[in-house]
């Protein structure tokens, strides 16, 4: 019985770590959450957390080795609802001493939580890019163009993501198509504000989570994960830039 329990708790900790890593939490948060849960069940956890895999060793209260396993993390899809849910769950485990079965049920429930409707995601993100355009000094016609371009670009990026295209290539294509739409409309309607539409229509692609998490990881001393995230963010920025630049060169807007 004791042995089975340690295997269950080990699998639970690995699953929580993998889910947090894929949902976009920083490394320190993953470490603290795993340690908090392990401690509340009376185990001592030692782990190695990387971008693609998590390695965990559990010691039972007597100090004997109870569990040792490596788990691959999932694909990186930002999902703050999952992070928030797991954070609340970890405090409930500490406060209410939930059983392992209940925690598994809660995790399954969190995985099935409804996401926002697809049309609402597309519309609000496109509206956000239009807001950027306005903040940069664009007028309302330019905002409309940006809205259309970002809407189609994000749709294409999501469809490419479903087809399992390389994520960097997906970002490149989305950036290229978005700016091409802006450019084609710009042939009939010349922009008044130095191509503000070009700049702001690709802003939905910016790698905000990798760049901000990389700084916080480096500050926490998880330098290796920080460097990996920074590199990830830089490559995405480069993909956006190359897509944008090709379109700008085609329309000779330089």
């Amino acid at each position, binding site marked *: 019985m004791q042995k089975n329990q340690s295997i269950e708790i080990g699998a639970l900790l690995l699953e929580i770590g993998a889910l947090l890593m894929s949902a976009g939490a920083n490394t320190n948060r993953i470490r603290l959450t795993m340690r908090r849960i392990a401690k509340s069940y009376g185990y001592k956890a030692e782990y190695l957390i990387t971008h693609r895999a998590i390695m965990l060793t559990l010691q039972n209260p007597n100090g004997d080795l109870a569990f040792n396993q490596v788990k691959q993390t999932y694909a990186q899809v930002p999902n703050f609802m999952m992070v928030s849910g797991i954070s609340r769950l970890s405090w409930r485990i500490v406060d209410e001493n939930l059983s392992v079965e209940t925690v598994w049920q809660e995790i399954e429930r969190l995985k099935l939580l409804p996401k926002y409707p697809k049309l609402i995601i597309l519309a*609000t993100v496109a*509206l956000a890019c239009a*807001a950027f355009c306005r*903040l940069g000094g664009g007028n309302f016609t330019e905002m409309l163009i940006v809205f259309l371009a970002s809407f189609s670009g994000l749709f294409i990026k999501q469809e490419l993501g479903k087809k399992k295209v390389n994520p960097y290539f997906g970002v490149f294509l989305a950036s290229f198509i978005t700016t091409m739409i802006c450019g084609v409309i710009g042939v009939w309607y010349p922009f008044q504000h130095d191509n503000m539409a070009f700049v702001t229509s690709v802003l939905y692609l910016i790698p905000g989570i990798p760049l*901000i998490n990389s*700084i916080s990881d480096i500050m926490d001393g998880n330098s290796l994960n920080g460097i990996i995230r920074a590199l990830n963010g830089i490559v995405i920025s480069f993909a956006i830039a190359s897509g944008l630049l090709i379109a700008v060169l085609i329309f000779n807007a330089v």
Partner: protein
Amino acid sequence: MMDWIDFFEKWIWFGVAAIGFAILFNVPKRTLIPIFIMAALGGSVKLVLLHWGDSLVLGTLLGAVLIGFLSIYAAHFKHSPPFVFAIPAVIPMVPGSYAYYTMKGIIKLANNSNNTDFVPLLNDTITNGFKTLFILMAIAIGVFAPMLLTRRDSAKQIKMPLLKQDKK
């Protein structure tokens, strides 16, 4: 009078931009209103400092620090980790246009064959490039500031003034 209307309009656009990214990152519904308010306040701090102090980097840093501290408050009220609020709220401050002018400058430099144009072009490109870099650093450090200053592991352990909370 016109200035105030202009200011209020920008206030709303900062919030709208943050909400778009919040929904892209799939945040819980209860956090949407705090994210809107935080993004608008942080953006206003940036605009005010830009108007008075003429320093974009300092304005962005202070705006991001404000968002960082507000995110701790919001985390206590709405029971979500602070960075769920902070990351969507700071994204409207990302220096998209400076990054664009930097790249545009680099292409111009690559195609340039005129000696007299070279130095002013290089000046502009490097200024824009460093502005982009420093603004990005200011955003990241600003968001992280509360954790850095209070030296706590979790936002739950940070004691908030003006807020009743149970002992953990």
